[in-house]
């Protein structure tokens, strides 16, 4: 089997300060440049040596302009992963890694920048009088926001498997718990307890306010290089063990007609990831699982084999998900719920920090660190990083 396993390493990671939506003092393009410079500095490389860029979710910052602004020597690779939401977070890593492994480029930046104050929000309905195409079959019935697009998948899954609300709550509580140790987190100093979750308003059942991601401004970036160069950089080496993207049969069937509907879109991808990485769920030391909504995390964890579908009520308890001692430390930076919503690239950076040992909630001796990106959309993606010992 052809594989990316062990072929690419992370040289550095970086981000801007994270802001409440609309509060960033800088333009989105400057945020992107700031994060890329931070990642280059973390790697100890000159931005002149960056020769490729990979992003996702229709990022507005064109690689040609970034390359020019950074004074890069040349541009050899520029890649945009199709699809919205955070489904492309690990896919952008996969695309960058494939470019390096295939000899198209040597030093590729994966990045995402968002300034919603400048460009408008995600969670809002459209402001026009008529609607045509697929959305004509949903928006006139009041189905228009991301929360509304995904809630019916989660309702069906919870119905089929008898899942209680407390399982979703555990995911949210773990994220907020971890954010209290992370000074970068937007929810740092703002803990969440069971009673506050339970009393919070419904957005759309089964999502309370605290089941929904934040909306933020900022940018994040990481620098990927060939694995042979991993020892050149200041941090403990972090290798890509596997990365896959896509979705199951007809996941994109219009108007909620996906045959396997109550799904996070990972039934085919999870086995492919494990095969490429040469691991199974029992080998994962720490997991970052993209939270657009907690229900997507729940289905992602099931579809990646951590928990049987009918065992969710026993499995999804907060203590299991807490670093350092839980069996499956989850979203250890606070994630999209409590650190920052950077379309999940922050989760990828946190996974790297766990391997390096410089997370704000370190999992002792973490050797296998996994990311699940963008449940319920299509395409989705996932990847695994490992320490030198896992090669």
């Amino acid at each position: 089997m052809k594989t990316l396993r062990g072929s690419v390493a992370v040289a550095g990671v970086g981000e801007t300060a994270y802001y409440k939506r609309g509060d960033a003092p800088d333009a989105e393009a400057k945020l992107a440049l700031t994060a890329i410079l931070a990642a280059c500095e973390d790697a100890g490389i000159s931005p002149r040596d960056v020769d490729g860029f990979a992003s996702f979710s229709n990022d507005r910052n064109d690689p040609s302009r970034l390359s020019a602004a950074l004074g890069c020597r040349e541009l050899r690779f520029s890649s945009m992963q199709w699809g919205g939401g955070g489904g492309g977070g690990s896919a952008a890593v996969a695309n960058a890694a494939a470019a390096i492994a295939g000899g198209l480029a040597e030093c590729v930046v994966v990045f995402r920048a968002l300034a919603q104050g400048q460009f408008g929000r995600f969670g809002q309905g459209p402001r026009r009088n008529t609607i045509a195409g697929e959305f004509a079959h949903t928006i006139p019935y009041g189905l228009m926001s991301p929360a509304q697009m995904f809630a019916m998948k989660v309702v069906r899954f919870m119905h089929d498997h008898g899942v209680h609300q407390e399982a979703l709550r555990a995911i949210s509580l773990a994220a907020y718990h971890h954010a209290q140790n992370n000074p970068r987190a937007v929810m740092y100093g703002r803990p969440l307890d069971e009673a506050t979750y339970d009393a919070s308003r419904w957005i759309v059942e089964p999502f309370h306010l605290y089941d929904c991601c934040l909306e933020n401004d900022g940018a994040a970036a990481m620098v990927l290089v060939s694995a042979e160069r991993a020892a050149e950089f200041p941090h403990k080496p972090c290798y890509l063990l596997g990365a896959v993207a896509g979705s199951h049969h007809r996941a994109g069937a219009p108007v909620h007609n996906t045959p396997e509907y109550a799904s996070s879109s990972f039934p085919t991808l999870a086995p492919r990831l494990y095969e490429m990485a040469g691991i199974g769920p029992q080998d994962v030391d720490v997991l970052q699982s993209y939270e657009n909504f907690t229900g997507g995390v729940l289905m992602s964890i099931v579809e990646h084999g951590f928990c049987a579908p009918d065992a969710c009520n026993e499995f999804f308890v907060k203590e299991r998900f807490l670093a350092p001692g839980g069996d499956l430390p989850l979203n250890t930076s606070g994630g999209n719920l409590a650190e920052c919503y950077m379309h999940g690239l922050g989760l990828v950076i946190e996974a790297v920090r766990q391997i390096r040992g410089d997370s704000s909630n370190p999992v002792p001796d973490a050797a296998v660190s996994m990311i699940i990106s963008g449940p319920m959309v299509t395409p989705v993606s996932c990847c695994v990083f490992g320490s030198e010992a896992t090669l």
Partner: protein
Amino acid sequence: MSQPYLAEGLPQPVPAPDGLDAPFWAGLAEEKILIQHCHSCQGWQWGPEWICHHCRSDNLGFEEVSGEGRIYSYERVWHPVHPALKDQGPYLIVLVSLPQAGDVRLVGNLLGDPEQTVEIGAPVRAVFEHHPQADPPFTLLQWQLTA
């Protein structure tokens, strides 16, 4: 029916510029549910496509089906994201499967008390919600529990 389920002011549906779903919207105006059907393999599909995903034929038409369906999933919305709905209060969206059309699914609202308990699998029947004063006029396909 007299009152629309949701407050007026949401974007109103118009046929796709490429005409792909135009027969569906024209059918609703005449109180008919027309779903895409393949003349080659007799398969059903929804939303409409240019070819049949079962057999790849482009010999497709729209066939009338009865308004009997079942609730496949649902959601109760509390937080409005469109200004037209700011005083709406909670409302119910249902995903309805049509057993007579290969269990293709349609999105609509479940009429009645928005705080009612909803049962997945419950039988529902179609209700045509006409908006004759709109420009252009349109019809939405709503659902109510079968008595």
